[in-house]
């Protein structure tokens, strides 16, 4: 009944004792928190969490289990998972396994029995920090190793598709640039009839335009947008040529290509209850979010972009559009999974844009 011990060590020296969960091993990562109460499978399998350790503030993780349909990527790249309780006996008609076996299968290290609320508060107050889940009880050594650990800047390259592939449809031809895309982006486009070609992150403007796409979609992805230099160059060429819709990292890349800047947030937005105001409609959408970087609102001032959506609680930029070209993007996830569906109108907007090729 009492499981083997395991530790979560943070770079500030704090140590949390818990129990073994998932795979064995030691993966350092950036410790972030997510406040969602559902969609655990979608979250863990979201490649935007590459090199990150997800702390779930909600305590019962995996109560509806893991199934064969809801993963957002086939190969999750999340570094680690911190939970209060890993539900041993989940229940749902589609469930095939529990959190522990899912993590083991995907070689993700986990720890349970942790006061995740206290970690959430620590991150809220001090910002995200490096951490490691470990079986070693030499915590000083772990802290030293963490302090000197540098995360690589090639996360996008690690999770993007290496070769193009097609997800067929009979409607608009969409080039989806994969920076670590969630599967539901492809599904959302397919559902609207789009013929989707998924392209590697480093595709050039030329290759993309050779496809003669009706529109280009930029996916979400991990890491610092400034590291994804090829894509920024590609976008500088592409803006104005073809309708473009960006999500999350894709949104940040559009902003950078347009001359704005991005910055790293203290602890980001990760959850399924983030309130965003659509400025034109003066209406609030509850959105699903997962980002640690944001577009600097001030930096938009001297660009061709304007803000369309704003986070009501901290006034950060949640959406922008080009003043004349058919380009728009949002920081959050209109494809949901996990999260509310009410922003899916943005996909419809993208379809309209490809249909009329006019300004939105």
């Amino acid at each position: 009944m009492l499981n083997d011990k395991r530790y979560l060590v943070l770079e500030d020296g704090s140590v949390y004792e818990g129990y073994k969960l998932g795979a064995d091993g030691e993966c350092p990562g950036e410790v972030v928190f997510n406040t969602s109460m559902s969609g655990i499978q979608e979250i863990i399998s979201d490649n935007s969490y590459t090199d990150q350790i997800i702390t779930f503030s909600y305590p019962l993780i995996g109560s509806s289990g893991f199934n064969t349909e809801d993963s957002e990527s086939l190969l999750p790249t999340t570094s680690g998972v911190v939970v209060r309780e890993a539900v041993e006996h989940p229940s749902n008609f589609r469930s095939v396994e529990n959190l522990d076996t899912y993590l083991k299968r995907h070689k993700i290290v986990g720890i349970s029995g942790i006061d995740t609320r206290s970690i959430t508060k620590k991150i809220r107050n001090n910002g995200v920090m490096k951490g490691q889940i470990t079986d070693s009880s030499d915590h000083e050594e772990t802290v030293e190793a963490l302090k000197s650990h540098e995360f690589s800047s090639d996360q996008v390259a690690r999770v993007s598709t290496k070769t193009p592939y097609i997800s067929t449809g009979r409607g608009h031809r969409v080039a989806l640039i994969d920076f670590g895309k969630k599967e539901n982006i492809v599904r959302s486009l397919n559902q609207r009839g789009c013929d989707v070609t998924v392209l590697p992150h480093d595709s050039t403007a030329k290759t993309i335009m050779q496809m003669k796409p009706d529109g280009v979609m930029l996916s979400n992805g991990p890491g610092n947008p400034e590291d994804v230099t090829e894509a920024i160059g590609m976008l500088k060429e592409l803006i104005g040529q073809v309708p473009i819709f960006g999500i999350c990292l894709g949104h940040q890349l559009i902003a950078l290509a347009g001359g704005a800047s991005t910055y790293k947030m203290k602890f980001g937005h990760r959850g399924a209850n983030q309130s965003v105001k659509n400025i034109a409609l003066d209406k609030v959408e509850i959105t699903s979010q997962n980002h640690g970087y944001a577009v600097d609102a001030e930096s938009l001032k001297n660009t061709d972009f304007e803000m369309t959506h704003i986070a009501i609680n901290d006034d950060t930029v949640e959406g922008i559009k080009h003043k004349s070209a058919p380009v728009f993007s949002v920081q959050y996830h209109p494809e949901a999974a996990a999260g509310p569906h009410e922003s899916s109108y943005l996909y419809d907007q993208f379809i309209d844009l490809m249909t009329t090729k006019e300004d939105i």
Partner: protein
Amino acid sequence: MPKRKDINTILVIGSGPIIIGQAAEFDYAGTQACLSLKEEGYRVILVNSNPATIMTDQEIADVVYIEPLTPDFLSRIIRKEQPDALLPTLGGQVGLNMAVELDRLGVLRENDVELLGTKLDSIKQAEDRDLFRNLMNDMGVPVPESDIINTIDEAYGFVETVGYPFIVRPAFTMGGTGGGICYNEEDLKEVVANGLKYSPVSQCLLEKSIAGFKEIEYEVMMDSNDNAIVVCNMENIDPVGIHTGDSIVVAPSQTMTDKEHQMLRDVSLSIIRKLEIEGGCNVQLALDPHSFDYYIIEVNPRVSRSSALASKATGYPIAKLAAKIAVGMTLDEMINPVTNTSFAAFEPTIDYVVSKIPRFPFDKFEKGERTLGTQMKATGEVMAIGRTYEESLLKAIRSLEYGVHHLGLPNGDDHSLEYLIHSIKAQSDERLFFIGEAIRRGVTLEEIHDWTKIDFYFLNKFKHIIDIERALKENPGSVDYLKWAKKFGFSDRVIGHRWEMSEDEVFKIRREEGIMPVYKMVDTCAAEFESNTPYFYGTYETENESLPSDKEKILVLGSGPIRIGQGIEFDYATVHAVWAIQEAGYEAIIVNNNPETVSTDFSISDKLYFEPLTHEDVMNIVHNENPKGVVVQFGGQTAINLADRLSENGVQILGTSLDDIDRAEDRKRFEALLQEIKVPQPHGKTATNEDEALANARHIGFPVLVRPSYVLGGRAMEIVYDESELKNYMRNAVKASPEHPVLIDSYLTGKEIEVDAICDGENVIIPGIMEHIERAGVHSGDSMAVYPPVNLSQDEIDMLVDYTERLAKGLNIIGIINIQFVLSKAGIFVLEVNPRSSRTVPFLSKITEVPMARLAMHAILGTNLADSGFPPGLQLEKDGYYVKAPVFSFSKLKNVDITLGPEMKSTGEVMGKDKTLNKALYKSLVASGLDVKDHGTALFTIADKDKDEAVELAKRFSQCGYRILSTSGTADALKKAGIPVVIVDKVGEGDNTLLRSIQNGNVQIVVNTMTKGKEVERDGFRIRRESVENGVPCLTSLDTARTLIEVIESMTFNMNEM
């Protein structure tokens, strides 16, 4: 959008008396709403007939009307006050029904009153089954196959196409009154007929039963700018088929993936948008456990019991914001009052698990039918918060105060496995405990699932609890296992039981090992935003967020779940005590576990601990806060019962000392006191066994009043007329022992008088004296009470005041005291003394404007009452007459005998007030739901001992124009007195039985008094139940009947010759 400036005065309708299906949650919602509207500068007019509420305090609204909630009285208020708008969505089903009626009568139009919040069409669309079904069909939202029927024949037609089983839901009723499931033709006849009777429009929805589906609820809100959010979703552990009010509920839902959650969220939001509800709305859905198929069950276009639960579960104050939305404000411009750092347009997310367990009245109604179904039966509920599911469940269980402390019954071993299985299959209210016991005996989860359709997720959690029990047993004294068990909510008591140790010994180990709970904040946002909500729950983790302040603190213990005998009155007193503590400059900390109440609104106290009211849980809080003392006087017996052990553990109990409380409750010591202060009491003795009881009763002389010591609400109290009855009582009703003796008193007939007083040890303030309508022997909670007394001489009043002062001083009362006297031929005797706040405190406070609970609390904190502004002694009599009338929920409780007696049976109360006594009585009767008619048919079935008295009453009914019906025995007596009477057949004799007359609607009032003897008793029971089931008032006390005829006489003309 800013608030509307074109309206100034808003009328708010409350929900009236507490009944099953409509409890304290509407006091919470209404209070929040009124304060919220006042905060925005509106003039608020409140109408509610229930005096025991915070919302009817003068501070809550600008004008408070304690008047009957009928279209007639509301119309008068509207015509007088000319409000600009009416907000009907905060007073439960009563509020909505009133709005519909006032519209139908044209009152709203004539007086130019706008309906706020929910449009009338939307109310109708959500409430009228046919319109609702059409709306859902239009939206493409699935609803179970169903049909609206108005006759039994139509029900047969439905069965032909859809088949059994099906559910019956009467239109426009609350808490599913009169509903049920039909499995066969027999059920059809009974349940459909019942449903048609209870529906004010004689309409029922028959619906294909989807029993076994998961029942999921969404609490949604929307503003005028189309911003819509989900505040909370909840999963009923009991699948569809058991009323959600009777279900064990967990938040957030546990067994849905995000796909199902978002699917149901989408449909819930589309419904609130379609109905254009500006405010809160509750959507109940059924989800197939094996697919994505779902159905909409029901939509409540108003705040509800579930929204109160959702507010307490998340911290998000739905009613407060719904009121602001109703006056045009939008969610994106309002600050989230919980965080104060983020906006209200936001979906709360929680980082804990919440369990709600209903509280049933079957400890009082042992013969009541305990099978749960679509008719709600619970009187109240408890909620508990934990970081594990097991913790939240076990904390909720020990909050129930059933004598259960864990997942099992204390005497679980006594039951045979067959009995356990039977009770689980029968969906009895105790099945959770039976399931625990069954798992303990090795019954497989598959079997239990087959019987109950409870999801395996929860069954596995239950099993986990049993597994921990076993591990504890195998590892006695193990600190590791102790830590483990505490994380899953095990109490020291239960751990001690497994370790064969006392609770205190376990606590000692915990203290030594530093295994103490930490307290976490409820903040709506899972710590994402900085928050300062003073709302906490305990759990076993690392970080404690509830850091004590430097201020001196007073801990107030609340009264737990609403049950018969301990209702909303105690929450009223608790809240007032908190206010007084704050006025006196202390920090007021409250501990309570009832999610319905005002006291568990975190904005009431300086700090709220949402925790079980057990010794262990309270001691843990004491250790964290180190308060100056604990107040136990206001939380009913729940709080009083904790006092002894708290005190033993060095906690200072404030107010009347424990020793003096004991002197009031210990029979022998109380007798000694009465002798010393020369206050007489009926002759009485205690007995610890049957022989002693018989000897004592013979000595005192029959009839005697018997009851166990230390009880609330007259539980197990009976009037016993002879030795065989006494034997029966001693064998079956009580477990007498030297620690728990039985009290045997001479039963004196006479007027019952009730007095509440406040004392600081020297000065005694008596706000007023109340006279009961029903003679002594009817529980004071079930009696009508009149202020001021109308049949007392000045000498008698002087003597009552004198006795009250002697008792208060003699018992060294610091705080409040409640005394019941009987005024018999032999003089005034004291029947009972309660050294604590009583049921009548809010009633009397409202009449006399003496803030009793507040004054008492100030006295407890050391204020000299001489400085209170109120003179000592009996206060000057107020003008007018004030009547408290009890309200019962018998129609919702099958097989419960409604005869009034020493055991309390009412669930709530109303107040009627006016310049004359008869008008006040009339209002109280009407407010209690009795339709006072000036003519009709009255059925008299009277016990021999009461015949003389009844004849006189029957005569008066007859003279007012009532037709009198009776069976042969009573008819003889009536005929002799010259009263025209129609004879009907007795139960089981002939075709024209009195039961048939009641069923046919040919009787408007039944007067029935109890006859002893097996067969007659059973017949009487059937008459009384038949009345209840047919909605015919049944009076079992001739005193009540006399009052009614006096009222009728005063409102009609007498046809006597002059």
